[in-house]
């Protein structure tokens, strides 16, 4: 029987299999940030264990950093301490750090790919569930808890049971104005937030084959929102040309050798998956969420389904919606374009293309938060900054920002925010905030119109 992409990468990283127990899985790259690493460093210190492979770790500060005045000391004392702790730990253990002010700083899942740290066929982990993003390159990438961060520090390995495999195939042609974010929100709405639990998902079919790397990252990023450990897309010419020329990517003969290897990775034709789903691209419309988990999504023109149950009612009550409501023309006051899901240059190009020559609605606070210093630079160089500023959008510095509202970037209680982030959980963007997940272009259109509109219908 043939092997899946997932099998090939997993099996080539198994150091040993424990009888009646987990595999010892070797980790090629370990990304860390300020929030989920300090307790792992302390754990090592308490047990007098050194960091085993510091050269395979890359650190950045992203979750807890301000997006204004990053050149000044961080005002919030706890945030300042946490970021300072990361600096100290990295210096002590000889770990490369792209901290505040560094030209490579940014959201951990944006900088890995853009620096060429992320490559096909790798195993990657980070103390962050959206590590699944890196699977867009055909790598096995998944989020871990802090105890596991300590395990990787100590041994460059993890003890893990091999997940099951799932393939989600989407064939056909997407309608104009339907973005990768809509595709993944549609899939999660169809399957639910726990459908992927225990599985690694391979996204296959013409829709993903034709998708840019940025789009593939958006899709794999949200595979965790259907409960999956991670998502993967087979590497192809799009992948190789994205990786080529990146700062830490292999070059010359080494790159040729790598590409020859990467070409062996896609799933064999006779590979079997534990679970398979198929969808048709033409059924996918621009999506929005109406509830408090990412599976509660509908096409913009559709109405909130008539489901029952206390959890469903609680969710609608929090959001201020009723069954049968449509979100089309819903007035909104906040728009957030950013997060590890949608803060790459392509996302801002799409948004600015829509915004060019228009003005944001006077009542709307529209926040643009680039995923990295490099994206911020690109926004400026490509003239997108001028477009956003002329339209009245506020451009901030790189970080996770209002996606999880650990810093000052919060949405006020009761307010709706059309957000390109990944989670619409209660209070995610600030206590009482009501998040509506959408694509960058739907968010841009909402900012201009002051309400939710289907930009394919304008």
């Amino acid at each position: 029987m043939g092997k899946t992409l997932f099998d090939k990468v997993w099996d080539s990283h198994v150091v040993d299999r424990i009888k009646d127990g987990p595999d010892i899985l070797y980790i090629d790259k370990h990304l860390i940030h300020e929030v989920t690493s300090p307790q792992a460093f302390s754990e090592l210190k308490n047990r007098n264990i050194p960091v085993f492979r510091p050269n395979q770790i890359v650190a950045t500060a992203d979750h807890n950093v301000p997006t204004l005045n990053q050149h000044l000391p961080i005002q919030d004392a706890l945030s300042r301490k946490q970021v300072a702790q990361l600096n100290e730990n990295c210096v002590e253990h000889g770990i490369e750090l792209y901290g505040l002010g560094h030209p490579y700083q940014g959201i951990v899942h944006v900088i890995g790919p853009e620096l060429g740290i992320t490559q096909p066929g790798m195993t990657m982990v980070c103390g962050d569930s959206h590590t699944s993003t890196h699977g867009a390159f055909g790598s096995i990438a998944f989020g871990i808890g802090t105890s596991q961060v300590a395990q990787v520090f100590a041994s460059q390995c993890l003890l893990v049971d091999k997940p099951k495999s799932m393939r989600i195939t989407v064939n056909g042609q997407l309608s104009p104005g339907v973005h990768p974010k809509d595709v993944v929100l549609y899939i999660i709405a169809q399957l639910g937030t726990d459908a992927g639990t225990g599985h690694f998902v391979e996204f296959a079919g013409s829709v993903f084959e034709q998708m840019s790397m940025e789009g593939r990252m958006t899709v794999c990023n949200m595979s965790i929102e259907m409960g999956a450990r991670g998502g993967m897309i087979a590497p192809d010419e799009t992948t190789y040309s994205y990786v080529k020329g990146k700062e830490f990517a292999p070059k010359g003969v080494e790159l040729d050798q790598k590409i020859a290897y990467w070409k062996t990775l896609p799933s064999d034709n006779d590979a079997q998956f534990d679970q398979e789903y198929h969808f048709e691209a033409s059924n996918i419309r621009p999506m929005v969420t109406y509830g408090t988990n990412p599976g509660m999504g509908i096409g913009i023109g559709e109405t909130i389904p008539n489901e029952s149950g206390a959890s469903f009612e609680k969710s609608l009550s929090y959001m201020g919606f009723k069954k049968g409501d449509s979100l089309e023309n819903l007035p909104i006051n906040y728009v957030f374009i950013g997060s590890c899901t949608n803060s790459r240059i392509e996302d801002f190009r799409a948004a600015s293309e829509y915004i060019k020559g228009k003005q944001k609605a006077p009542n709307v606070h529209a926040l643009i938060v680039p995923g990295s210093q490099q994206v911020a630079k690109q926004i400026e160089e490509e003239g997108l900054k001028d477009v956003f500023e002329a339209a009245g959008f506020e451009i901030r510095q790189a970080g996770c920002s209002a996606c999880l509202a650990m810093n000052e970037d919060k949405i006020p209680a009761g307010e709706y925010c059309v957000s390109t982030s990944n989670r619409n959980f209660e209070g995610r963007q600030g206590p009482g905030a009501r998040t509506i997940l959408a694509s960058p272009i739907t968010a841009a259109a909402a900012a201009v119109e002051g309400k939710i509109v289907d930009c394919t219908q304008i």
Partner: protein
Amino acid sequence: MIAHKFDMEKFEKLNTQAVPLNIENVDTDQIIPARFLKATDRNGFGDNLFRDWRYDSNNQPIEEFVLNNPNFSGKILVAGNNFGCGSSREHAAWALTDYGFKVVISSFFADIFKGNALNNGLLPIQVSPEVLANIFKVLDDKPDASFIVDLKAQKLLVENIELEVDFEINNYKKTCLLNGYDDIDYLVSQKEKISQFENLKNA
């Protein structure tokens, strides 16, 4: 079996009560909101467990929330389907254990949360949706119903209904919990093998 140092507290047989949280898809942002993740140590997260369901914006306890209901107490949290989805923050497991929970019962757990729980001596017990509904009903009728959790025998017993449930747990993790082992020492003991693997991989 694998040689470890003792690091976690051993999981002993429990005879306790349970607290019902009959909500599905409880995500880790509810268990511990992101604004409380700024600490650099593992202690004290219990104070902010379910913060925004437990306290209003003036920090006053919300009476209807179950943790504020004096009728319920105990070391078991019984929660709706798909508990612990969302963020990988281990702070969620730390908040639950710091508050005093030793066991979470649900009909389904998110992967990362389940792993984090097991790495912190917090036992996730998965039961069928029918059993879960039954347990919620028992707690509705008798808030101080007794529960026995016997990890060694992999049994959950509930007083009042003659309910005896066999639950699943990976043998390796069971040994770790019963003995208070964690994974680090085992992995460190395998460094030679890991180095050999690296040499082969880079050859």
